[in-house]
C-alpha cells in the first residue's frame, strides 16, 4: 500500500507539532522517521494510525484519502514502545484480540494466532500473561498482534527502545527480515540513527515538526542536506568547525586561525556555484580524520581524551579552543597531553551555510538561500 502525505499539519494548542509535511512512501517500502524527541515523528505516525486527526493536509493510502477513517477502518498494525499489551489477557488473547473484533471464526482464529506466534518464536508461551513474559517476549507478542490481522501497513513507534542492547540488535535484524519477507509497507519511528540506518530503505529526518531530508541511508550519511542532518546522523557525530572560504591561485581554501586546507576543485566550484558565504561551517566525520607524520599533517592538536571502543579508539583532540574527535585504528599510539599531527580527508569535507544551515555542496541548494 502506497502512503502519500500532503501538506500535513498538526497543532497542539499553538504549537506546530507537524509542519507542512510532504512524504511519499512506496508500496512495500520500509521508511524510518528519524529525529530527536519532540520532533513530530510520533505525531506523524499517530496521524497515520488514525489516533490523531490532522489539522490540515491529507493522508492517502493508495489513492484513497483516509483523513476521516477511524483506526479500525485503516487496516494497520502498530507496535508500541511500551508494547501496550493488555495486562489482563494472556498472550493468546492479546494476539487474537484483533481477530475477535473482526469476528473471525474460532477455529480460523486459533490457527492464525498459532501461525503468527510460531513465526515470532513465541508459540509455546501463549498461555502466559504479559507480566510473566520477558521484555523481548512481550515485544514479540506485540509484533504478532500487529501482524495477525494481515495489515496493509505496519507502524512501529520506537519498538526497540525498552530492550537491552543485545536483544535490540537481534530484534532489529528480525524485524527487518520479517518486513522484507512479508513485503508490508512499514513506517518506523526512532530517535536512534543506527536503527534507522540499518533497517530502513529510506529515512525521513524531522526536527521541530519540519521534514529535514528524505533519502536512502548512505546518501544521508555521505551527502547530508542540512547541518541538522549532518549532526544527527552518524555516531560519533560529525565535527563542525567555523572556517573562512577563500578562492585564490586557482584553488579553493578553508582557513581558520589554526589550519588551512585546500579542498578539491570540483567541491569548491560547486560551493561557489551555490553562493557559498565567506564564513562557512565545515563538517568532517571522525573517521575522515587520521593521525599522520608531521610533514603530511594539516594541523597540530593536543590529545585530550582517549576512549577505546575495541575495534577503534575515539580520540578527542583540542586545538585553539576548538575540539575535534577522530576515530583511529586501535590501539591509539599516543598519550593524553601529547601534541599530534592530524590530516583531514578533503574528499569528505562537508560545507554548510551557517545562516541557512543548508549544505552548499548540493546541486540546487544555493539559489534557495
Amino acid at each position, binding site marked *: 500500500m502506497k502512503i502519500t502525505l500532503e501538506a500535513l499539519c498538526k497543532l*497542539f494548542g499553538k504549537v506546530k507539532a507537524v509542519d507542512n509535511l510532504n512524504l511519499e512512501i512506496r508500496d512495500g517500502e520500509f521508511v524510518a522517521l528519524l529525529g530527536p524527541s519532540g520532533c513530530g515523528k510520533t505525531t506523524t505516525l499517530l496521524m497515520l494510525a488514525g489516533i490523531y*486527526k490532522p489539522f490540515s493536509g491529507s493522508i492517502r493510502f493508495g489513492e484513497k484519502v483516509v483523513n476521516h477513517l477511524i483506526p479500525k477502518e485503516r487496516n494497520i498494525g502498530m507496535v508500541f514502545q511500551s508494547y501496550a499489551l493488555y495486562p489482563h489477557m494472556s498472550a493468546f488473547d492479546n494476539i487474537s484480540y484483533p481477530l475477535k473484533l473482526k469476528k473471525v471464526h474460532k477455529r480460523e482464529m486459533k490457527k492464525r494466532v498459532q501461525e503468527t506466534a510460531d513465526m515470532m518464536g513465541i508459540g509455546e508461551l501463549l498461555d502466559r500473561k504479559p507480566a510473566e513474559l520477558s521484555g523481548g517476549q512481550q515485544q514479540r507478542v506485540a509484533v504478532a498482534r500487529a501482524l495477525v490481522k494481515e495489515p496493509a501497513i505496519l507502524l512501529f513507534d520506537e519498538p526497540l527502545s525498552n530492550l537491552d542492547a543485545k536483544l535490540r540488535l537481534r530484534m532489529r535484524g528480525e524485524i527487518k527480515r520479517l518486513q522484507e519477507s512479508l513485503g508490508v509497507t512499514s513506517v518506523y519511528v526512532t530517535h536512534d540513527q543506527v536503527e534507522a540506518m540499518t533497517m530502513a530503505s529510506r529515512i525521513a529526518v524531522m526536527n521541530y515538526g519540519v521534514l529535514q531530508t528524505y533519502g536512502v541511508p548512505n546518501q544521508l550519511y555521505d551527502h547530508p542536506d542540512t547541518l541538522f542532518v549532518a549532526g544527527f546522523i552518524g555516531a560519533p557525530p560529525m565535527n563542525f568547525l567555523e572556517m573562512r572560504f577563500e578562492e585564490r591561485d586557482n584553488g579553493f581554501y578553508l582557513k581558520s586561525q589554526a589550519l588551512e586546507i585546500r579542498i578539491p576543485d570540483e567541491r569548491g566550484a560547486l560551493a561557489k556555484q551555490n553562493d557559498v558565504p565567506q564564513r562557512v561551517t565545515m563538517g568532517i566525520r571522525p573517521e575522515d580524520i587520521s593521525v599522520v607524520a608531521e610533514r603530511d599533517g594539516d594541523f597540530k592538536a593536543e590529545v585530550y581524551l582517549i576512549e577505546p571502543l575495541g575495534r577503534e579508539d575515539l580520540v578527542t583532540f583540542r586545538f585553539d579552543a576548538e575540539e575535534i574527535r577522530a576515530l583511529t585504528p586501535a590501539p591509539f599510539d599516543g598519550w593524553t597531553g601529547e601534541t599530534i599531527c592530524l590530516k583531514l580527508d578533503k574528499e569528505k569535507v562537508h560545507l554548510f551555510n551557517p545562516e541557512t544551515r543548508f549544505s552548499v555542496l548540493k546541486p540546487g541548494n544555493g539559489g534557495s538561500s
Partner: protein
Amino acid sequence: MRGQLAPYVFLSPTLVLVVLFFFIPLVMVFILSFTNLDMTNFGILAWWNPVNWSLDNYVKIFTNRFFPKILGNTIMYVVLTLTVFNVGMALVIALITTHINRRAGFAFRVLWFLPRITPVVVYIMMWKALAGPAPMGIINSILGPLGIGSGKYLLNTAPWIFIILANGFIGASFGMILFSSAIEAIPKDYLMASKVDGATTWQTIRYVELPALKWPLLFVTTYQTLSLLTSFQYIMLLTDGGPGLYQTEVWALTAYHRALTSYFGNTQWGYGAAWSVVLVIIGIVMAVIYMRVFKFGELVEEPKIDQL
C-alpha cells in the same frame, strides 16, 4: 461522525440524572423563591406564573434581624469543622496510621470510620448520651468524680463544641481515607531514598509525603467545604438550632426550617426556597474560587486520542 457522538453516549446517563435531579429541581427552587407559596395557598397559587413573582423573599432574608447571626454561625461552623477535623484531624490520623504498626493503623482507621457508617439517629443518640447531664451523661459521669464540670447537659452549655465534634468525627473519615490512600500510593523508592539520605521520620513526612498530598488536600478542602455548607442533618438532630434563639442555626438549616417545618403552623416553601437559592449561589461562588485558586484546570490533561 460516529466518533464525534461517542463522548455524549458515555456522558448520557450522568446527563439524564443531572438534569432530572439537579437542574429541574434547581430551576423549580429558583422559581419558587420568587413566590410566596406556602401551605395555605398551595393548589391555589399559580406559582409558575410570572405574575405572582416578586423579590420579597430576598428582601426578607437580608433584612431579617437574625441574618448576621445565621451567617456568622455558618462561617464559624464551616471553617472550624473543616480546619480542625475534615482536613486537620484527617491529615493527622492518616499520617500517624500509615507510620505505626500496620495492624494498629488499620484498627484506628476502622474506629474513625465508624461514625460515617453508624445510622444517623443512633449516632446522634450516642452524642446526646456523651453530653448528657449527670449522672446519665458519659462525660459528666467521668469528669464529675474528678470535680470537673457542673454536671449540666453539655449540649446546653456548649452546643457548638458538640456540633463540631459530631460533624467532625464523620467528616474526618473522608479525608482520612483519601490521605492514607495517597500516602500508600507514594512509590516506596522515594521513601527508601529519603531514608538513605538520613532523613528523620518527620523530615520524610515534611519533604516527601506532604508534597505528594497536595492534590488530595485541595480536593478534600474543596469538596468538604461544599459538603459542610449544605449539611444540616446533624445539627438539626442535635440542637435543632438551639438551645438559645438561633444559637446554632446555620444557613442550610434555616432553609430547611423555613421550607419544611411549620413555625406558626405554616411551611413557607417560597421563602425557604429563597434561602436555598442564596446558599446555592454561595456554594457555586466558593467552588469557582477554589477551582481558580487551586488551578483545578491543570488537572485536566488534554486527551491524547482525537475523535475522528
